[in-house]
């Protein structure tokens, strides 16, 4: 809409006609208090805190419902307005318990803040306040009725925002009360969004309540370690005798890719970090065959010696490396580099949750075709094929719902089963489980409501699930490319599955999906790596069983569980495991290194949309080390040139490898040159993962990152278009093994979250009850 000019407190402001006054003011730095108004949720005008005076209008107006028009004049602060707000606060405080000293929201309470501002300190009322016991509605949600000021944010967030509709308002007048759908309990997705939007301490979280005071915590913004969406999460960290405790997960600054949103896993599933079962010391299998705690020096020595021995006696081919879907890009990059340059093997793989290699191959050379997760919140038309975002990509589901609700976006759903997002869809097309193959033909024939509507769209965001792999995906992408004005996104599990693939934790592909036997920046610098593609994860098992696998290094993965490897399959293999817990796989290991979780280290991770974000170290845990550091120390103990592995120190790495003549001569240190040209300082520690990030940017084509934004805590997109087409080989679609983790599960990690387990039990109980009815 056209811009209009109006006056607020004597200042001329401009905003599109029809903008809500409260929003226009906030953008101009004029804060108008409000309880019930919440951006993106339906308007209520119920709390009456936002009252302002509009010229020529007899009554005070609510800024949350007033839309701006040309020439209007407003006053937002005056004695009259302050009095109105003060009186409203006095009314609220008349019944509100003054238990701020023990209330979870104390210090983070909008009612406190406003009382402070408008000075409604004295009580007008002689009547006793009504006390009511707190209720537990679910493992996640507690409700303290007297504290509730009935702003209805929770009701709207649950219904409009989450499409769960588990909260309502019952009774009327002063008896009005927020009520859960199970009468005395909640039956919902446990996302905790209601707690998040509650302006006071009426809704509190089971995981945080009565644990600490907000000002006793440090608040660190990092990235969630669970699903492939990569929400920004703020962790509340408190010092403790153990180093630090993570006491809270929330989404305070709302600045992330996830805006307002966080799901149950992001909000509550951080507690695995504090688990009693965390490994705190390295373990080495002793002479009697039992795992025994030891020192880092000893564990490193044992592991390094054996790995070196296997490599030198049986060749790098007899060693294999299994990487992780949750470690950082820097760690993944370092891991493959260690495998290829130190262990001298291409036998490196991870448990692939999606066929990212084919995705990269399909989009290679096609600029601006890869979608960011943000696009899901803005695109005018979205075609969602396969997948089940509500369960497996909660943030994506949120973005799609919000986009449909707030921007009138059109969502089209094609799926082989009924998914919840159909409720937002403009058209739905069912297909048989193996029927995705025919989708492009169906669209091209322009038959049926969905096809007709989709074909009529000017642009399309095409999001597809793990149902798509290999040729089928290539066919779908090439259909989209032909059609034009289509962007693509591919849905895989886990917080850094995409990063693992991007970083070349694959037997046949180097970082950036460059074939191991094709020339490229990485291969050029690290000449002498094995040129033949290595073995895949399932082949590791075969090698182990036939005695060909001398050693296996597993980082942050649990193949015994995830790939169903038999407990004794690795008997003849020297097994090194880096993990947080003594998993089924770690139990088989010869050496176990206690690793830090994502919340205890810094590095970048890439969500399934290819958005890169910076995870920041929030907590400390005695005894554990980041996988990055473990790998560096292991290499060092093996006698490798650490400086070649991690370009740290005043000079990075030497890249000319003896070339002393011709055009290249004198270009002694490409890394140093690159750093200088990018205005970056050399990193001084071998344990600084950002040194490797520098190298990733330099050598991985898709990772030309906007650093300023990245370090400011924003998500920055990668560009698969920069992957050289010529270098690509046919990926192995058959190895894809999706995890399909739901709202409360998160692989092995999730099993160590007491909180997620509790929620799961609650859900199972709920289900059993409904079934019994």
């Amino acid at each position, binding site marked *: 809409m056209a811009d209009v000019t109006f006056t607020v407190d004597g200042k001329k402001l401009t905003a599109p006609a029809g903008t809500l006054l409260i929003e226009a003011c906030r953008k101009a730095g004029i804060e108008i208090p409000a309880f019930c108004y919440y951006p993106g949720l339906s308007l209520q005008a119920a709390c009456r805190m936002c009252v302002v005076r509009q010229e020529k209008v007899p009554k005070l107006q609510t800024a949350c419902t007033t839309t701006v028009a040309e020439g209007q004049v407003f006053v937002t602060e005056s004695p009259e307005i302050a009095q109105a707000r003060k009186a409203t606060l006095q009314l609220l405080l008349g019944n509100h318990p003054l238990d701020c000293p023990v209330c979870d929201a104390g210090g983070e309470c909008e009612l406190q803040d406003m009382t402070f501002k408008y000075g409604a300190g004295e009580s007008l009322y002689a009547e006793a306040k009504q006390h009511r016991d707190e209720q537990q509605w679910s493992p996640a949600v507690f409700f303290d009725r007297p504290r509730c000021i009935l702003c209805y944010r929770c009701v709207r967030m649950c219904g409009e925002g989450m499409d769960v*509709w*588990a*909260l*309502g*308002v*019952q*009774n*009327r007048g002063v008896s009005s009360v927020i*009520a*859960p*759908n199970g*009468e005395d309990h909640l039956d919902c997705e446990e996302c905790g969004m209601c707690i998040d939007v509650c302006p006071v301490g009426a809704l509190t979280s089971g995981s945080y309540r009565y644990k600490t005071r907000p000002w006793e915590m440090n608040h660190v913004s990092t990235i969630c370690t669970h699903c492939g969406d990569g929400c920004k999460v703020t962790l509340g960290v408190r010092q403790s005798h153990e180093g630090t405790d993570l006491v809270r997960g929330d989404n305070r600054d709302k600045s992330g890719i996830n805006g307002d949103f966080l799901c149950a896993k992001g909000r509550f599933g951080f507690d695995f970090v504090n688990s009693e079962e965390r490994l705190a010391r390295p373990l080495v299998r002793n002479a009697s065959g039992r795992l025994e705690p030891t020192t880092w020096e000893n564990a490193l020595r044992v592991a390094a010696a054996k790995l070196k021995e296997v490599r030198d006696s049986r060749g790098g081919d007899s060693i294999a490396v299994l990487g992780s879907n949750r470690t950082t890009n820097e760690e993944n990059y370092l891991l493959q580099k260690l495998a290829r340059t130190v262990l001298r093997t291409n036998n490196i793989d991870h448990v692939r949750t999606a066929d990212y290699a084919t995705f990269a191959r399909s989009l290679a050379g096609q600029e601006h075709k890869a979608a960011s997760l943000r696009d899901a919140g803005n695109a005018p038309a979205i075609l969602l094929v396969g997948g089940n975002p509500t369960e497996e990509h909660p943030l994506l589901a949120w973005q799609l719902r919000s986009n449909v609700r707030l921007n009138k976006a059109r969502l089209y759903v094609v799926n082989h089963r009924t998914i919840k997002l159909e409720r937002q869809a403009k058209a739905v097309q069912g297909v048989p489980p193996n029927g995705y193959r025919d989708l492009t033909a169906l669209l091209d024939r322009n038959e049926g409501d969905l096809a007709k509507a989709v074909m009529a769209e000017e642009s399309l965001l095409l999001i597809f699930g793990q149902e798509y792999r290999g040729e089928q995906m290539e066919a779908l992408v090439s259909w989209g490319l032909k059609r034009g004005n289509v962007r693509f996104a591919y849905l895989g599990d886990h917080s850094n599955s995409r990063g693992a693939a991007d970083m070349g934790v694959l037997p046949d592909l180097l970082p950036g999906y460059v074939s191991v036997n094709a020339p490229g920046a990485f291969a050029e610098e690290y000449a002498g790596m094995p040129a033949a593609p290595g073995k895949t994860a399932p082949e590791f098992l075969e090698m182990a069983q036939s005695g060909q696998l001398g050693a296996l290094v597993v980082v942050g993965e649990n193949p015994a569980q995830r790939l169903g490897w038999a407990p004794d399959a690795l008997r003849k293999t020297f097994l090194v495991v880096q993990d947080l817990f003594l998993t089924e796989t770690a139990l088989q290991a010869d050496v176990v290194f206690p690793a830090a979780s994502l919340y205890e280290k810094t590095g970048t991770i890439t969500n399934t949309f290819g958005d890169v974000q910076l995870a920041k170290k929030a907590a400390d845990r005695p005894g554990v080390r980041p996988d990055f550091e473990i790998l560096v120390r292991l290499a060092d103990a093996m006698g490798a040139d650490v400086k070649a592995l991690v370009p740290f120190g005043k000079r990075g790495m030497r890249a000319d490898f003896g070339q002393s003549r011709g055009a290249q001569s004198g270009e002694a240190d490409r890394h140093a040159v690159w750093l200088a040209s990018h205005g970056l300082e050399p990193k001084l520690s071998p344990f600084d993962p950002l040194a490797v990030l520098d190298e990733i940017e330099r050598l991985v084509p898709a990772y030309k990152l906007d650093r300023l934004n990245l370090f400011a805590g924003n998500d920055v997109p990668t560009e698969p278009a920069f992957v050289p087409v010529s270098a690509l080989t046919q990926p192995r679609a058959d190895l894809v093994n999706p995890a399909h983790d739901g709202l409360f599960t998160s692989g092995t990690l999730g099993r160590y979250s007491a909180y997620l387990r509790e929620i799961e039990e609650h859900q199972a109980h709920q289900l059993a009850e409904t079934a019994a009815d």
Partner: protein
Amino acid sequence: MTPRESETMSIFSPALAARFDALVEKYPVKRSALIPMMLYAQDEIGYLSDAVIAEIADRLGLTELDVRNVASYYSMLRFKPAGRFNIQVCTNISCMLRGAYDLFDRFQEELGVGHKGITPDGVFSLEEVECIGACCWAPAIQVNYDFHDELAADSVPGILQQYRERAAANGGR
């Protein structure tokens, strides 16, 4: 539940179920039938039991929470049984000025129950209510839906007798 199933499994009498089937067709939007349905269901069953709420929610495609949210707003709807004859005494201003409190006190005395009380035999319940739209014929009461107006405390025994006889004629309860 499919519609057919819900029909056969209805907890309402066939006549009421048929009435509901017709009611939902009357409005541009089905949900408009909600409040009448709840009131008529209460007339038949006595109160909004969990089963009533479940069936109404099902018939209108609403969640039970939604039905409860609406039901709990309206003061005539209740979630617990009342007496067979619910005596509602208006004590609002016009009635108050003409002796409604004396009337209410007399009902309390005669019945031995107070506001929202039910007599042990379940025949009567008593309620003090807001204005019932009979101000010019005050004081007035409603027994279920029947109005009785221009009353005095002395009218109480006669009114109670009248309903006791009706209760007896209908087999005790």
